[in-house]
């Protein structure tokens, strides 16, 4: 009743191919953007911003990047943590070695560095597939981990290998308070999400999807697999590299290679799978599920006034989290984004389903 496109006529091809062709969707997006940009900074506590929203936004960006590779192009990768580390260390080194450089510009350049590394490690994908490729990308993860902890140059010769990021500034503005940091991350995320959405609708995105669905068939209809696969690795690594820079500079402020270890790779892959492969929205849902849910589960007993020992809470947290993963997969094996889409379809027919 509320969600119906009856009466909305498309008179141009452009209108028909809009990102959000239905007016309710446009309103919806505008509403949420307003909430995210205005309401949330006004009402959120420092804890909410610093400990939940900022990490969520940054990891959502990384998940978005990985989703382009895994969900759209079908190339499983477990090297995400390594590529994030490339972004973080590249941004750091650019800032340290070229003091005049603005960190925000450094993020983009770091994304570029990450792109090159991503292409290099994407080359095996031309030969190997599926789980074999996934495990092979672990080579990138472990190798990059090792390089950053072993080659002192990357950490500017700090003896312990732990480094501290310079402040992030834009002209006179310093991103130091949680609200400013949040807005910075949100704007970058929105920008990148828009880019991603348009990429996957275009020629390149269609080439990725064809490769994903069946690479041999794609090759036969004239898509060059090398171009499709490596471009997916490149774009994905760029997103992930920028996310890595943000994670290091904006969220942690000070980090060591362990911040980008293999667990980070796994957790971002989980976000993509649980959120929904091949869905931009899925990346956000997955990131929310994997980052926020454990924190909520961890604090739930306290809000409810139940006193359980810390150890038991964290064990229960793990168990319930695992159960929820299994539960959601059984309900909808294709991820949370698919659940959302089904909900939308239902809403379209509501309240007269026939």
């Amino acid at each position, binding site marked *: 009743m509320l969600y119906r496109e009856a009466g909305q006529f498309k008179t141009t091809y452009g209108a028909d191919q809009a990102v959000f062709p239905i007016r309710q969707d446009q309103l919806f997006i505008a509403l949420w953007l307003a909430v995210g940009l205005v309401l949330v900074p006004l009402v959120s506590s420092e804890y909410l911003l610093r400990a939940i929203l900022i990490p969520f936004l940054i990891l959502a960006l990384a998940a978005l990047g990985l989703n382009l590779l895994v969900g759209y192009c079908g190339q499983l990768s477990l090297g995400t943590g390594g590529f994030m580390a490339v972004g973080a260390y590249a941004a750091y080194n650019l800032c340290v070695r070229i003091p005049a450089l603005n960190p925000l510009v450094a993020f983009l350049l770091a994304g570029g560095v990450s792109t090159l590394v991503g292409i290099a490690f994407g080359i095996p994908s031309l030969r190997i597939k599926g789980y*074999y490729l996934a495990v092979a990308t672990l080579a990138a993860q472990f190798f990059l981990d090792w390089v950053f902890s072993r080659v002192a140059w990357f950490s500017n010769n700090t003896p312990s290998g732990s480094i501290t990021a310079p402040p992030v500034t834009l002209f006179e503005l310093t991103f130091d308070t949680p609200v400013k940091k949040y807005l910075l991350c949100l704007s970058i995320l929105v920008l990148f999400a828009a880019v991603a959405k348009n990429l996957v609708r275009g020629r390149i995105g269609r080439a990725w999807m064809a490769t994903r669905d*069946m690479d041999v068939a794609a090759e036969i209809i004239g898509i060059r697999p090398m171009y499709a696969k490596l471009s997916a690795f490149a774009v994905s690594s760029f997103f992930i590299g920028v996310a890595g820079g943000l994670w290091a500079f904006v969220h942690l402020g000070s980090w060591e290679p362990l911040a980008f270890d293999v667990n980070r790779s796994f957790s971002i892959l989980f976000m993509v799978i649980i959120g929904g492969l091949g869905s931009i929205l899925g990346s956000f849902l997955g990131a929310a599920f994997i980052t926020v849910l454990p924190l909520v589960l961890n604090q739930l007993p306290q809000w409810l006034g139940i006193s359980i020992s810390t150890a038991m809470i964290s*064990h229960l947290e793990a168990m319930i989290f695992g159960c929820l993963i299994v539960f959601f*997969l059984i309900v909808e094996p294709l991820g949370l984004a698919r659940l959302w889409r089904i909900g939308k379809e239902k809403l379209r027919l509501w309240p007269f389903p026939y």
Partner: protein
Amino acid sequence: MGFFLEVVLGGLMAGVLYSLVALGFVLIFKASGVFNFAQGAMVLFAALTLVRLMEILKQTFSPFLIALLLTIAVMIALAWVIERLVLRPLVNQPGISLFMATLGISYILDGFGQAVWGSDVYALDVGVPKRPIVLFESMVPGGVLVPSEDLAAALIAGLLMLGLGVFFQRTRIGRALRAVADDHQAAQSVGIPLNYIWVIVWSVAGLVALVAGIVWGSKLGVQFSLGLVALKALPVLILGGFESIVGAVVGGLIIGVGEKVSEVYLGPAVGGGIENWFAYVLALLFLLVRPEGLFGERHIDRV
């Protein structure tokens, strides 16, 4: 020369342990096409159950044997529960969803195991000798040092693999398992109950996890980190192929030796700590030549 032999031997011993973990992965992948991320958690869970039961049964005549039998029962029950509650509802879903589901299982097992049995470190002593043996003293100066604990572990692992080989080749259930591995639908149509087979496979994988847990646990002490040894099995998998038991064994040995030799001889030149990624690079190099692993099955795509 003596030292080189020691390094190779050390690598072989470590390799056997890797194969042991890889074997659990292969069994399940072969029979159900599931990349079982929970294998590491199963190793930890089995070892924790065993070691804590042994503590409870301290008064009985043979705590180890009784606890072992009980743990086997627990692992079989676990396999049954997993099949019922996770695999059956997810039948015919894409592999990646199943992979994700096993991740859920590993969270549940980690939490459950620690909640029931505690998260401390527990010593597991199964009476394996620890003093190293010195061999070939007459041939090479200083002799070749062979850690007897590793030797015992290798022996156990070897026996297990032999047992599995016999089980797969000679028994009725083993033949049914191989039929399922070859083709689910064909196997089902000749009257092999799929669900039942899955329970068996997961039980066998549980047993392999238990053996791995005993071997690693007596080495490291039974504690949470035991679950992390699963990562060491991944390069073995891609090298040996996801579907080959022989591949898991041979791959394990190659990775073990390659890793140790590289760390000892190349490591110091570049600052050390390279064995972690070197194993993967080694496996990757093999893959570029043979994309389906050393013993994996070649797939032919049809459009």
